[in-house]
């Protein structure tokens, strides 16, 4: 008998051999395995030396006074009670405080008032009952690894039994590894831990259980960042909760760590002949025949679904500054510890219609160590390394560029996203040098270019290009493939460094086709992708940048496009560190993902994760930058630890194999993906979580399927993106 990964199981074996004092150790280790937030603090080998918290808060307050209105940041520090309040000025479409008030006794939270700016301001709000009434998110960050518990509360507001179906986003690198179904509480709260199974088998069992009238739930992956939750046989007036836990790594850019929780799937455009489309239809419209259908609420509708979010950060070093540009939040540091921060979503900002993005900056620009390790009970070592670019890169200048801008002018980009993109491009043109050349490509239902070929960055050409950009607007479909072809198919000027910059919300259903075509055509070009909007398709944007050895960045609502572009130019104005080789010292290292080490770009570290044995020390990275040989050493004397690294590693391994399958058509990897997902208890393209309550048959038949209708993302127009 082989026992794997379950700490309590091993501890039981310890009991067999009579280990004295075992029980307390069992409890301690099992608590760690249970991954309670408080148990996930990084364990640094050296004590933290950060001091002067009150002064830091005062600095934050002083700095905030200098921020523009557009940055929407105000931190109020009270040195006496160490409470911060970060306020986003209310927008007109923020829901009123009373939005969640019931206007019908006994209607529960399923009924809400439509915010007036989502439709006709004079129109009466339309109340739409939906099964998903509340999502509760509790996230904790230790170092740069997040543990996120998501609870979805499904309630049946109808007179008949239903099956609820909800399609929702999670970060594309989320390692979804726990699944619990809670039935009741009218029958007494009962929690059933679900099990991971091969996807087809899980679906078959779920359908059988549904046909039997049993409470059952199924969590499947539709895309790497879109998941589907089904809950069967919810009886009238009853509630079933689904609890999901996942792990992922924070992103880091230009000194800021970012925690992101996506809240809504944006409506996708599907070019003709897409093999696995994601359809966007109005609520109550028949699902499309193939692919995935997502229902959207109409502009004058809202369901009562709201969201609560709490984020606990333990950075291990003093947190100097923090921002939330997407939501109104409150923040404080419990116990006055400057390394920690507790963030809560404000009560009046709970409509799940845009990504939640919280960023913070720590003392010394980065956390103490980018290296996190874990050795499991079977002795398998895992590590995650956030590899920061060497400071030397900033001293090196770039070669002349061939800058290609590719702007998404489809209907979903109309409004603020289009305006931000234009601002960004105008600013970028100003940063070009006379030796550079540039091209502007727009695409919607088709693609067109500013000129027949890249033109020199002369003042006259730039003025002409600005006029061209001014005349662009958002309408039509999203034939991104045309933009990709136009950007990558023309001959490359060997004397210039080609940089292709995409500005898009990524609302397409044919990601695989786009990535495949990019891979075929990319050559020596570098691709940088800008996600523009409140709920962009981060999976596509990150994968495009990865393929193009560049980086992804995001223009959130309220961001100044020009400022974001300035940061971008600071980044690409220095050569990347390429041809990277890593010496792991005395340790034996294997299965490092991504399998091709990305280039290091100023301001953008690379995250590697792998398996190791022995001692990880004396890590040295060498490569080339601007024709020169550069190197850096990775400090390992302050290594942190995290118990979920095995799952983080397994998720990256699966993502790497799925990328290879998509690019090369190498379907021989499927068994390896499946085995990895089953072994590490992860949802994947081939595995799903299933939970069944086999103790009781519900009343009536299997009931009617109700698709949870979603709000269109904040800033996206319904009429240009959703099919009626």
């Amino acid at each position, binding site marked *: 008998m082989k*026992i*794997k990964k*379950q700490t*309590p*199981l091993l*501890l*039981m*074996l310890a*009991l*067999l051999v009579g280990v*004295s*004092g075992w*029980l*307390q150790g069992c*409890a301690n280790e*099992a608590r760690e*395995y*249970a991954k309670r937030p408080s148990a996930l603090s990084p364990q640094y080998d050296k004590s933290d030396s950060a001091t002067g918290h009150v002064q830091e808060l005062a600095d934050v307050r002083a700095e905030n006074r200098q921020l523009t209105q557009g940055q929407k940041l105000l931190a109020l520090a009270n040195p006496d009670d160490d409470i911060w309040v970060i306020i986003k000025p209310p927008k007109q479409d923020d829901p009123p405080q009373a939005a969640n008030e019931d206007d*019908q006794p*006994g209607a529960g939270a399923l009924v809400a008032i439509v915010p007036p700016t989502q439709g006709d301001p004079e129109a009466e709000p339309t109340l739409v*009952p939906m099964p998903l009434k509340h999502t509760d998110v509790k996230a904790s960050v230790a170092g740069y690894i997040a543990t996120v518990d998501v609870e979805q509360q499904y309630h049946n*507001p*109808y*007179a*008949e*039994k239903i099956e609820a179906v909800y399609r929702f986003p999670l970060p594309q690198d989320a390692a979804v590894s726990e699944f*619990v179904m809670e039935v009741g509480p009218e029958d007494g709260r009962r*929690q*059933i*831990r*679900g*099990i991971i*199974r091969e996807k087809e088998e899980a*679906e078959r*069992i779920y*359908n*059988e259980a*549904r*046909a*039997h*009238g049993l409470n059952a739930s199924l969590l499947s992956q539709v895309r790497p960042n879109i998941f589907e939750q089904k809950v*069967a046989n919810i009886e*009238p*007036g009853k509630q079933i909760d689904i*609890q999901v836990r996942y792990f992922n790594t924070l992103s880091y850019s230009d000194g800021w760590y970012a925690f992101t929780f996506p809240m809504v799937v944006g409506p996708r455009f599907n070019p003709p002949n897409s093999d696995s489309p994601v359809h966007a239809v109005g609520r109550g419209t*028949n*699902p499309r025949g193939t692919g995935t259908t997502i229902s959207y609420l109409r502009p004058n509708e809202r369901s009562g679904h709201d969201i609560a979010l709490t984020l606990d950060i333990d950075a291990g070093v003093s947190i100097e500054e923090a921002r939330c540009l997407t939501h109104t939040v409150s923040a404080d540091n419990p116990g006055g510890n400057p390394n920690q921060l507790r963030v809560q979503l404000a009560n009046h900002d709970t409509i799940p219609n845009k990504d939640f993005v919280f960023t913070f900056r720590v003392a010394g620009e980065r956390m103490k160590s980018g290296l996190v390790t874990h050795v499991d009970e079977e002795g398998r070592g895992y590590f995650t390394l956030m590899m920061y670019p060497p400071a030397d890169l900033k001293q090196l200048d770039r070669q002349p560029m061939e800058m290609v801008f590719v702007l998404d002018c489809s209907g979903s980009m109309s409004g603020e996203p289009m305006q931000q993109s234009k601002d960004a491009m105008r600013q970028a043109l100003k940063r070009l040098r006379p030796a550079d050349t540039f091209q502007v490509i727009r695409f919607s239902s088709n693609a067109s270019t500013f000129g027949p070929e890249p033109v020199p960055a002369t003042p006259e050409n730039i003025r002409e290009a600005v006029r061209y950009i001014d005349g662009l607007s958002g309408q039509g479909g999203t034939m991104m493939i045309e933009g990709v072809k136009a950007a990558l198919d023309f001959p490359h000027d060997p004397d210039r460094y080609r940089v292709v910059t995409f500005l898009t919300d990524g609302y397409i259903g044919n990601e695989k086709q786009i990535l495949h075509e990019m891979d075929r055509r990319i050559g020596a070009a570098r691709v940088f992708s800008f996600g523009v909007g409140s709920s962009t398709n981060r999976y596509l944007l990150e994968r495009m940048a990865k393929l193009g050895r560049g980086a992804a960045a995001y223009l959130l609502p309220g961001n100044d496009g020009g400022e974001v572009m300035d940061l971008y130019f600071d980044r690409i104005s220095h050569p990347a560190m390429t041809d990277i080789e890593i010496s792991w010292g005395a340790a034996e290292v294997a299965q490092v993902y991504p399998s091709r080490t990305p280039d290091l770009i100023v301001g953008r570290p690379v995250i590697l994760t792998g398996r190791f044995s022995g001692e990880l020390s004396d890590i040295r990275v060498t490569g080339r930058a601007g024709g020169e040989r550069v190197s850096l050493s990775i400090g390992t004397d302050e290594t942190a630890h995290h118990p979920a690294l095995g799952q983080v590693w397994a998720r990256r391994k699966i993502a790497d194999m799925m990328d290879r399958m998509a690019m090369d058509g190498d379907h021989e990897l499927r068994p390896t993906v499946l085995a990895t997902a*089953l072994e590490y208890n992860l949802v994947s393209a081939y595995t799903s979580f299933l*939970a*069944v309550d*086999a*103790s009781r048959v*519900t*009343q*009536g*038949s*299997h009931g*009617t*399927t*109700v698709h949870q209708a979603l709000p269109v993302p904040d800033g996206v127009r319904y009429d240009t993106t959703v099919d009626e």
Partner: protein
Amino acid sequence: MIKLFLAITMVGLLIPIAPGGNPEHAAPKRSITVPKPDDPGSGLPPGAIQTQTTFATIKITIDPLGKPLGAYQFQLTSPDASFKVLGVEGGGHPAFDHGRPPYFDPVVREAGADRLILAEYALPRLDAEQLPSEPVLIARVAVLFDQPIDADEPPAINLLLTTAGDADGNKIQANLSHTLQIPERPE
């Protein structure tokens, strides 16, 4: 000693069910028409295949024979009836209530059939008096047998107690038993 109790009320489930909800069922706080049009109109949901299978719950009890129970581990298999594990609940005793159901070995498939290994430990810093010393329900395991279950010939269920310990971490003697419950369709 294994005590087996089989309560079979239905054989060969997956009887086609009439569409629509039960009109006699108590309505919720207010009546809302269920939205169209996702119901295919048949008795079975889309994708359902009629098979001769049986859903059941295996309830597992441990008797620590008068000693306070601090921890345990057991293995569950069925030698003559292949089953699939569909979910695991704890037994509900407050000494073992960690706020979440117990973890189990996720690699449940072995030689073509499922087997479940489950371990649990009491909350830390509990006195012996707070730990169970009488027979206590420790797990409810939802399973799907890949065959009809005959009330006269119930499938054998093997429970192997790997270990059990008291509050001080000393090994203790204990017995496992189980009952098999097949859910009854309401009248």
